[in-house]
């Protein structure tokens, strides 16, 4: 006889209303009597209802993994297994999606088939780090499910003190604002450090994120230890005829209020003939005017990336945004990509050697100072790395003259390098 559906009066209240209901989905899985997961999902619903009743969670961690890997599986054992025995083990696979989260329906169906055979039939697209979350599998089924996912071309993501799964915006695949090849960048950075992803041994988590421009659609600045964000060095591209079309359609007040005055550095003004004047030396590449007039304005042609390091959330010294460590680098040739990957590896190496246990990159930098970090990874200081120079005098400057010489030497070398 089939196991009875649990009574779920509280969860049932999440089936009403217009937004798609996860409860309805969970019930469908629990009622798929011909599937191996139906009983597991009945008890999962039972346990979730119990959480809603008592307002507490009942999952605990533990050890569960697949052969050859130390991470990528989130072990979940129920603390109330005596009440809900069929979902006593409900582990999650974190699986890395194709860069940019592109799928064919063919591959999605294959993923569904695997998870229907070995797991619960419940999949999240995607977790907050960007993993496909295959949620709900018993310990005994882990290896078989992974073998099939892996054979299909998918690999486990990160968990614990390790390099984590990364995200790239849609970028070059479908966005004219993209300043570089986001998908290649993301794959190059992560695939070079898979050992640190699959065998967690860093002080704490380490995240890469890749956004094609300052709109930062994957929240790289704050939500990654190593953010790569697109920008450009030359002048913004302006199509004055299209600018006029926007003006004719929307009016001069609109142009002044919504474009000109909203420039954060007053780099825009309106000429007497209603063309747009751009002070490109003052422009900070924030994207606002380009977002407003998508047909008239574009990033410049000399494009590349900015690298920021150290973004993270509260624990433990408070929120940090990533800060600039590379104001601009080209990212076009194979050598450019190699240089970026090398920088990523260097930062991870420095982090592994110098961070305290459970300290994020940003906290480590906060503790040792940005300059020591830059020296550790071999980068020169640059005024684009600060909001303003120091405001207190408590600092020793024994070798000021040497540092001035260094700056002058770099300044002299720059035009020569550009000319070569």
């Amino acid at each position: 006889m089939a196991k009875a559906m649990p009574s779920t009066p509280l969860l049932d209240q999440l089936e009403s209303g217009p937004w798609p209901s996860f409860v309805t989905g969970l019930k469908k899985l629990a009622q798929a009597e011909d599937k191996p997961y139906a009983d597991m999902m009945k008890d999962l619903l039972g346990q979730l209802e119990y959480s809603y009743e008592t307002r507490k969670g009942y999952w605990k961690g533990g050890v569960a993994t697949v052969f050859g890997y130390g991470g990528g599986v989130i072990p979940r054992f129920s603390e109330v297994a005596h009440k809900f025995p069929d979902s006593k083990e409900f582990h999650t696979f974190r699986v890395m999606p194709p860069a940019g989260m592109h799928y064919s329906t063919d591959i999605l169906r294959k993923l569904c088939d695997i998870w229907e055979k070995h797991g619960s039939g419940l999949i999240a697209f995607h977790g907050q780090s960007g993993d496909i979350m295959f949620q709900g599998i018993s310990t005994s089924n882990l290896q078989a499910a992974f073998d099939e996912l892996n054979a299909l071309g998918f690999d486990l993501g990160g968990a614990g003190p390790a390099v984590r799964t990364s995200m790239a915006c849609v970028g070059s695949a479908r966005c004219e604002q993209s300043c570089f090849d986001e998908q290649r960048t993301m794959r190059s950075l992560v695939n070079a450090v898979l050992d640190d992803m699959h065998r967690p041994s860093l002080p704490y988590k380490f995240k890469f994120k890749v956004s094609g421009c300052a709109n930062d659609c994957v929240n790289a600045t704050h939500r990654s230890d190593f953010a790569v964000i697109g920008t450009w060095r030359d002048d913004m591209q302006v199509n004055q005829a299209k600018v006029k079309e926007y003006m004719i359609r929307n009016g001069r007040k609109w142009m002044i209020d919504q474009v000109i005055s909203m420039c954060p550095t007053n780099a825009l003004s309106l000429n007497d003939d209603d063309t747009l004047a751009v002070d490109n030396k003052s422009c900070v590449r924030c994207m606002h005017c380009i977002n407003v007039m998508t047909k008239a304005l574009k990033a410049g042609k000399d494009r590349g990336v900015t690298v920021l390091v150290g973004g993270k959330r509260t624990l433990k010294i408070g929120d940090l945004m990533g800060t600039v460590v590379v104001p601009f680098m080209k990212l076009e040739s194979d050598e450019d990509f190699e240089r970026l990957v090398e920088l990523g590896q260097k930062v991870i190496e420095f982090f592994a050697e110098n961070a305290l246990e459970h300290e994020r990159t940003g906290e480590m930098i906060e503790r040792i100072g940005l300059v020591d970090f830059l020296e550790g990874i071999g980068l020169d200081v640059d005024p684009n790395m600060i909001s303003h120079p120091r405001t207190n005098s408590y600092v020793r400057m024994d070798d000021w003259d040497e540092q001035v010489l260094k700056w002058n030497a770099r300044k002299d070398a720059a035009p020569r390098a550009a000319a070569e």
Partner: protein
Amino acid sequence: MSEFRRPIESGVPDPFPFMHPILKKNYGLWEWHDRPRVGVLRHVAQNGDAVWTVKAGTQRQMDVFTIRKLCDIADRYADGHVRFTTRSNIEFIVSDEKKVDLLIDKLENEGFPVGGTGNSVSMVSHTQGWLHCDIPGTDASGVVKALMDELYHEFKHEEMPNRVKITTSCCQINCGGQGDIAINVQHTKPPKIDHDLVANVCERPAVVARCPVAAIRPALVNGKPSLEVDEKKCVCCGACYPPCPPMQINDPVYSKIAIWVGGKHSSTRSKPTFHKLVAAGLPNNAPRWPEVSEVVMRILRAYKNDGRPWERVGEWIERVGWPRFFEMSGLPFTKYHVDNYRGARVSLNASAQLRF
């Protein structure tokens, strides 16, 4: 160990085999985009190729039947290709303009709302909660579902001054991240310690080190090595709970919900900003958290009413000022809004600039 297969460490999959052929063909060659209607983006490439992206909301925690239904729809209208956004919306890439309206009708009929573009309120970013997390103070799926029911109209219309990104987090680690509005658990009582378990389960020095205010110290309790908390120092953040589950921080009554506003990830116009506390003490009222929705809607109404075009929530408040925000939202201002953690000084008004 010969019975086990060695993993192929293939890393991040190459997206090109799964990408819509027109996206693949025009990779890096796009010229401009616009939004012909809510929920639809049109991208035009340098060679004139065009694609229409239709964006729809999902429940994120999806059963295979729902995923296959979305696949059927994509096969029929979108050449068999989709992608997902960071906020768990699904995007159908349509190469034939005639199919756009048909696809939208189909999605709406199947219960997937189309929207989330431009100045709308997009899907609430989603964590795991009671469904699968080991440390959650609340559920994520339920909070998101209940809120999105309230925000259904705002998802399907572009009526806000600028885009609104709402986040939820089931503990103070805040996996949901920064948001224009963030809905986060805020514990209000120190952890209850099960002293019988600490010695066996917890690496005590690591737990001591984890505390942001040095309130935890080793102690011998009932003859067993354990930990004790200086409850006067404790800020109830719950940081000790993940490395030491016997330090139970979650409580059905004292784990409350707080609301934060003004977080922003982009460098667009203003630099990125962290969200700021505006309301706390809301009950963890499953299954639909009406008190949370009430505060969120109140903030959104004030923003919708008073924000200027392109101002994000934080930028709007930056212009009108915090006194006016508390006035317009009707939320009380208390001593707990004044920061006293590290770096708090920069949040004080060190000027004679005041608003009345």
